[in-house]
C-alpha cells in the first residue's frame, strides 16, 4: 500500500542522511520545465495532458537518478494520500486539485519528486536535509540534463526556459531553505527581518499550518525572481542573505539567555512536560512545543542526536499523518478531537524514554 511504504521507509526529511543541525532544517531546489510542442497544462486538452504524462513517465523512468522510483497518477490517490504527500513536502496543494492527466514520480528516499502537469508540464524538486545548495544543485542539474536528452524543453535564448506563468520564466528555479527561527520569533523581530529581505527579492513564508502562520517557528525562505540572474548567482545571493539571518537568529538566542535565561528555560521545560503528559494536542500547539524542544537541543539541554527525532515529529504530527496513524480507513470521518488525542498519545510515547532536560551545560554556541 502506497502510504505504508512511504511513511515507513527512510525518507530524507524524516531520516536524513546527514546529522541535522541547528536553524537550517533542509535545502530545496525546484526547476520548472515544459515540453516545447504542447500547450501548458492549464490550457491543454485532456488528451494532450495524457500524452505529456505518458511521455514524461517514459523519459523519467530511464533516468539513472530515478531507478527505484514510484510513478503515481493523481486520479489513483485518495484525498488522504494526497494530503500525506503534501505534508511530506513531495507535492504542492495545487497538484492535489489538478485535472486528469497529472501525476508525480518519487524516488526511493523521497529526496526527489517530479510533478507532472501541475502549473507547468514538469516541476522537478530535490530536497536534502541541512544547508547545502551546492550539493542539491549538483544533483538536480544532472537530473535535469539527463531529462533534457530525451525531452524537448521549451526554451528561448531571450527568455530562457518558458513557463506557464511569466513569474517563473528564465531559470525556472526556486531555491529555498526551511529554517527554524524561534529566537527571532520570541524577540518579535521576524517582521523586521522579512521586510528587509523582501527588499532583496527574497520571500519568507510559514510552511506548516494553514496560511502563512509561523507554525513551529519554521519558515521557508526562497528567491522570488528567476530571470536575469544565473542559477549560481541566485544561489549565492540567497546563501549570503540566509547566513545573515542565521547570524541574527544566533544573536536573538544569545540575547534571550543573557537577559533572562530562567524565562527561556522555563518555557522549554514546560514544553517538555506537556509533551510527556498531555492527552490532547492540536497540531499548532504540538508544533510550537516541538519547536521549543529543538531550541533546547540547540542549547545543549538535550543530546544532539534527538534533532532527527524532532524533525521527523514535525512531519508526523501533521493532520493527515495523524489520521493515517489512527489506522482509520480514509472513508471514515475522523474528528479533530480524535486526532488531537492521538497526537498527544504519539508524543507521550516518543517522549517517555528521553533523558531529562539539563540546563547546566546550556550555553549557546554557534557550532
Amino acid at each position, binding site marked *: 500500500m502506497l502510504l505504508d511504504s512511504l511513511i515507513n521507509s527512510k525518507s530524507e526529511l524524516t531520516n536524513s542522511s546527514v546529522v541535522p543541525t541547528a536553524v537550517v532544517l533542509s535545502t530545496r531546489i525546484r526547476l520548472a520545465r515544459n515540453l*516545447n510542442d504542447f500547450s501548458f497544462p492549464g490550457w491543454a486538452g485532456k488528451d494532450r495532458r495524457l500524452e505529456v504524462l505518458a511521455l514524461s513517465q517514459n523519459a523519467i523512468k530511464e533516468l539513472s537518478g530515478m531507478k527505484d522510483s514510484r510513478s503515481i497518477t493523481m486520479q489513483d490517490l485518495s484525498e488522504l494520500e494526497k494530503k500525506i504527500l503534501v505534508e511530506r513536502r513531495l507535492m504542492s496543494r495545487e497538484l492535489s486539485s489538478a485535472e486528469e492527466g497529472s501525476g508525480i514520480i518519487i524516488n526511493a528516499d523521497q529526496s526527489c519528486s517530479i510533478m507532472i502537469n501541475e502549473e507547468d508540464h514538469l516541476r522537478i524538486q530535490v530536497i536534502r536535509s541541512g544547508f547545502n545548495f551546492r550539493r542539491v544543485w549538483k544533483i538536480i542539474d544532472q537530473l535535469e540534463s539527463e531529462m*533534457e536528452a530525451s525531452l524537448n524543453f521549451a526554451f*528561448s535564448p531571450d527568455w530562457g526556459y518558458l513557463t506557464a506563468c511569466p513569474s517563473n520564466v528564465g531559470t525556472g528555479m526556486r531555491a529555498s531553505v526551511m529554517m527554524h527561527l524561534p529566537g527571532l520569533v520570541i524577540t518579535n523581530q521576524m517582521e523586521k527581518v522579512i521586510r528587509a529581505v523582501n527588499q532583496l527579492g527574497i520571500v519568507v513564508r510559514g510552511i506548516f499550518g494553514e496560511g502563512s502562520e509561523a507554525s513551529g517557528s519554521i519558515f521557508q525562505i526562497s528567491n*522570488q*525572481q528567476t*530571470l536575469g*540572474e*544565473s542559477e549560481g548567482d541566485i544561489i549565492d545571493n540567497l546563501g549570503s542573505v540566509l547566513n545573515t539571518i542565521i547570524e541574527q537568529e544566533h544573536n536573538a538566542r544569545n540575547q534571550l539567555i543573557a537577559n533572562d535565561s530562567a524565562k527561556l528555560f522555563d518555557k522549554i521545560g514546560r514544553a517538555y512536560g506537556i509533551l510527556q503528559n498531555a492527552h490532547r494536542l492540536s497540531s499548532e500547539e504540538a508544533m510550537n512545543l516541538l519547536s521549543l524542544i529543538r531550541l533546547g537541543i540547540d542549547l545543549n539541554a538535550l543530546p544532539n542526536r534527538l534533532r532527527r527525532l524532532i524533525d521527523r515529529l514535525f512531519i508526523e504530527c501533521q493532520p493527515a499523518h495523524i489520521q493515517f496513524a489512527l489506522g482509520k480507513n480514509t472513508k471514515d470521518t475522523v474528528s479533530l478531537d480524535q486526532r488531537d488525542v492521538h497526537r498527544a498519545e504519539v508524543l507521550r510515547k516518543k517522549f517517555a524514554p528521553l533523558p531529562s532536560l539539563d540546563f547546566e551545560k546550556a550555553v549557546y554556541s554557534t557550532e
Partner: protein
Amino acid sequence: MGESSNCNYCGKTATVHLTQIIDSKIHKMDLCEACAQEKGITNVEENSLTDLLSDEATLGATEEVDKVCERCGFSSNEFKKKGRLGCPACYEALGSIIETVIKGMHKGSRHKGKVPKRAMKRKLVQDQIDSIDKKLRYAISEERYEDAAHYRDQLNELRSQLQLKAEF
C-alpha cells in the same frame, strides 16, 4: 491602516491589503476575502504573490490590440485575466504585454544561466529554415526554378530534423 478600498478583482470592499517591495519598487494590491482565497493567498507552497504581481502588472498594462497565439489560440486578453499563458509560442506571439509584465517582476529581462543543448541546436536549425525559406521565395519570384527546387529539398531535410508537430 484602516483604509477602505475596493477589491482589485471584483470591486467589493477589500479586507486583505498586500504590500510587496521588489527592487525598491512598491507593489500594492487590495482584495476581498473571497478573491484572496481564490487567488491562493493562503497557498504557501508556491510564491502566489508573484502570480498576483503578474495580475497587477497585467491589469495596469496599457490597452493594446488583442493578439492571438497561432499555435494554441490563446489571446492576450486571456493572459490579462489568468496571468498565465497558453503555450511556449505565446511568449513571442502575444506581443509587448509579455515583455512589460516580465520587466516588472524580474531583476533582468534577458536569460542568464543554464541552456539546454538540444533546444539550442533546434534554434540553429530553425534559423537555417527561416533563411532558406526566404531564399526559396525569392528564387520563385525570380523564376529561378532550379534554385527553388534545391532550396525546397534543403528545407524538407531540415524540417524532418525538427519533426514539427502541427496540431495544438
